[in-house]
């Protein structure tokens, strides 16, 4: 692995995003719009907005980065640029880390922007510090990126890659505890929920925002999130083959 090649890849990915202002605008402003809609939706029931607003801020980047990464990496595989990169002095880890830096940066921008709007203008109030939301959002974005990278190996077309979003992400959002507390779920559902990474990402956000506590369970949440990220990156790296048939 080399710092130079990693950095070059990060710059290249950011340049690609910069050349696509529409995608960049969608990435940055759609979460803001959604949070605004949410606040309006629960204008009479502020409690609900306060309860789900914070965690939701931290989950947007996860979803966005999952989509962006799975499509971008699929393009690299299909267009032949990945094969070309494999003939260059560039480690697989350079490619992955380059992507992580570039998308982590965009995710941070996204999280900061939506946090400014939510905390500053929409009156969202959390127990924990708002920077914790931003930090968790970035770590979730990198989780989303690593999951997107991994599943891109199983898609042949961009249509398939997009379909991984409802297949992979929506069940996790339903079961993570955002809509119904996990303690009220049926036993089997809770068991499934225990096995899904979103559950831990959400729980960490919930603890940081609603409860404002950074206890042992928070540490466990964070470790699971980071652990799954590393695992998905390792699995993703194993799908980047230097030699193909």
């Amino acid at each position, binding site marked *: 692995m080399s710092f*130079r*090649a990693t*950095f*070059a*890849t990060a*710059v*290249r990915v950011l*340049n*690609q995003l910069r*050349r*696509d202002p529409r995608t960049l605008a969608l990435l940055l402003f759609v979460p803001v719009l959604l949070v605004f809609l949410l606040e309006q939706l629960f204008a009479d029931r502020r409690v609900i907005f306060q309860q789900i607003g914070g965690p939701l801020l931290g989950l947007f980047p996860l979803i966005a980065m999952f989509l962006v990464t799975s499509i971008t990496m699929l393009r690299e595989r299909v*267009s*032949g*640029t990945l*094969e*070309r*990169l*494999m*003939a*260059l*002095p*560039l480690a697989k880890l350079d490619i992955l880390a380059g992507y992580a830096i570039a998308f982590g940066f965009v995710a941070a921008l996204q999280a900061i922007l939506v946090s400014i709007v939510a905390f500053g203008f929409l009156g969202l109030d959390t127990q924990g510090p708002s920077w914790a939301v931003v930090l968790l959002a970035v770590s979730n974005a990198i989780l989303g990126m690593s999951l997107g990278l991994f599943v891109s190996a199983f898609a042949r077309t961009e249509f398939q890659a997009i379909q991984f979003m409802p297949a992979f992400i929506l069940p996790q959002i339903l079961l993570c505890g955002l809509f119904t507390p996990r303690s009220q779920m049926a036993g089997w559902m809770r068991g499934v929920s225990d096995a899904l990474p979103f559950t831990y990402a959400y729980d960490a956000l919930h603890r940081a925002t609603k409860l404002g506590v950074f206890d042992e369970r928070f540490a466990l949440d964070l470790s699971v999130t980071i652990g799954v990220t590393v695992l998905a990156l390792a699995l993703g790296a194993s799908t980047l083959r*230097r*030699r*193909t*048939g």
Partner: protein
Amino acid sequence: MIDYRPMAAAPSIVVENLRIRRGGVIVLDELSLSVAAGRVTGLLGPSGSGKTTLMRAIVGVQIVESGTIAVLDEPAGTPSLRWKVGYMTQNPAVYGDLTVRENLRYFARILDAAPESVDEVLETVDMTPFAGRVVNKLSGGQRARVSLATALVGSPELLVLDEPTVGLDPVLRRDLWKTFNDLAEQGKTLLVSSHVMDEADHCHDLLLLREGTLVATGTPASVRKQSGRRDLDEAFLALIKEEVA
């Protein structure tokens, strides 16, 4: 072209008993050949004869069933070779959403080449006026030249170019063949594939491939002699028929 230089001493590429299977079908069967250093070797043959597969194997991105390939005295695929071998894929493997210069700068950064080398290769492929253009907005021929430029970045010792002149206009084709000969003059080794027989006369040596086996090798003059035809196109057809008979 008349080449007065003696055949160079150590070959840059030595392939022995190479067998490659793709999708269950044997594409290259017990292929043995060598490519002399400091010369332009044309790899000619109809579509589907295995040219691209052989080139992929030489740059180390193809799964090989059996046999050996030595490139610059090292087994093909050795990491250090990625610094010394420039590869141009058959379909342009460049980022369509980046400008020509951004693409080349990425390759230059990975290869630790000086920023000025980007200007040099742009000049070589005659793309300086288009440096600031986004690749997707270029014509097919221009895109092919950008792809060629990426292979030239870092001035590698060995260039493996997969159909670099296909689809280009005659003037540009002549210029590129002159460039290839100039590079050989500077001591570089070039392996250039084509399915257009007229291009054979631009090469010092020829490798004629048909259905994964070598039909003829030697200088254009000796290939003519073997077949008894003056026109290389006819010579090739004659040699293929001989093989079949």
